[in-house]
């Protein structure tokens, strides 16, 4: 049986860990609120954008837009968005797992795969594959629209140069505080949106366009990429904190359980020591008689 002192230090250590994890939980909860607010603020923009986009692409001819060009897919680029920091359970691992699975599937189909990593964790883990084309680190903490724009511009340039034929975004979808699932969004070639968004608000295509529809599309499509990437980054931001909250909550609970079982061991050890001391005293007293 472990000595009394050993158990005591261990209990103190575990209690300190619990304190840290509890603090991290609280920090994550506060950050989650901020990230969720950011998501809420972005929603009207995104939904308006989608409505306009579908209105436009519904009427417009899809050929002649370089970003819409559907080519024979030879290379696929996966934009993997993860968090910059760890300690958030299996959140990043799940995204990476999906990325690797998709990579394997594309490679079996004879396509080349390259990665663009947003967030430090993703680039750390995917670097091993040697297929990372570009990584953006340390921007997930406080990202802005211009970060998304930078990424989107780069990806679009790759697509336009013919280096990639298809681009998909992998991110952690923020389903709820309790559940975040890795998700895939199609990015390039731009597909004319239809269906769900349209039912929200339907306009006849009787607009005056200035300049022409085609020119508007030329401006809108790169913006559309920004919107998708920014949205995915927002989702990852919120998911990360939610995942960390859960992970830290679990850790705190685990610490509490450990303290409980360690306390039992400690009490037992103490009791045993007391008993053996008593035995000694009683034995000594007996012998003196």
């Amino acid at each position, binding site marked *: 049986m472990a000595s009394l002192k050993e158990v005591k230090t261990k209990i103190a250590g575990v209690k300190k860990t619990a304190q840290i994890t509890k603090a991290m939980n609280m920090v994550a909860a506060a950050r989650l609120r901020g990230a969720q607010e950011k998501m809420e603020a972005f929603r009207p*923009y995104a939904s*308006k954008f989608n409505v306009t986009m579908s209105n436009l692409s519904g009427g417009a001819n899809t050929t002649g837009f370089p970003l819409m060009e559907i080519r024979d897919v030879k290379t696929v680029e996966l934009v993997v968005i993860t968090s910059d920091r760890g300690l958030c359970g299996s959140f990043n691992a799940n995204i990476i797992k999906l990325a690797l699975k998709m990579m394997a599937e594309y490679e079996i189909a004879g396509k080349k795969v390259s990665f663009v990593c947003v967030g430090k964790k993703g680039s750390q883990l995917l670097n091993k594959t040697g297929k990372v084309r570009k990584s953006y680190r340390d921007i997930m903490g406080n990202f802005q*629209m211009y970060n998304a724009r930078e990424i989107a511009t780069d990806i679009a340039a790759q697509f336009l140069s013919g280096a990639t034929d298809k681009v998909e975004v992998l991110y952690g979808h923020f389903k709820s505080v309790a559940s975040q699932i890795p998700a895939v969004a199609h990015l390039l070639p731009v597909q004319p949106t239809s269906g769900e968004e349209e039912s929200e608000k339907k306009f006849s295509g009787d*607009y005056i366009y200035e*300049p022409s529809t085609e020119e508007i599309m030329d401006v809108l499509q790169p*913006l559309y990429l920004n919107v998708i990437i920014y949205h995915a980054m927002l989702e990852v931001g919120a998911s990360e904190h939610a995942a960390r909250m859960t992970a830290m909550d679990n850790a705190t609970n685990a610490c509490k359980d450990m303290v409980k079982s360690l306390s039992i061991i400690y009490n037992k050890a103490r009791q045993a020591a007391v008993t053996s001391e008593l035995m000694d005293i009683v034995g000594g007293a007996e012998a003196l008689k």
Partner: protein
Amino acid sequence: MGQQIRLEVVTPAGAKVNEDVDIVNAPGFGGDFGVLANHAPFLSTIKIGTLTYENGNKRESLMVSGGFCEVSNNKITFLVESAEKGSEIDVERALKAKERAEKRLAQAAQQTENFNRKRAEVALQRALARMKVSSMR
């Protein structure tokens, strides 16, 4: 007072303006345009510049950067990447950004790198628009 049109300015960081106004002047891609109440459905891209609107005697200016605007049902909606009121603009920062962009432009002029030049140009436009709006206060 005549009829009014509802103005909405939406950015990725949330709605910026949502009120009834008399007239909106915006920097369209093909030149500035004004929109009054009951305008026909209209869609235009917006470049970096100044968005002005009037409500009675009140006149407000916003610095807007790239996006588009849509007019329908007596409502004008701007979807722009950023929109800042004069009072919110950090003039010093804009000035610095302007100098930086000018320096970069000068550098880019020597090289043939198109991409950097374009970025510097856009940055310069943004800085100039910011300074213009903040001076209108």
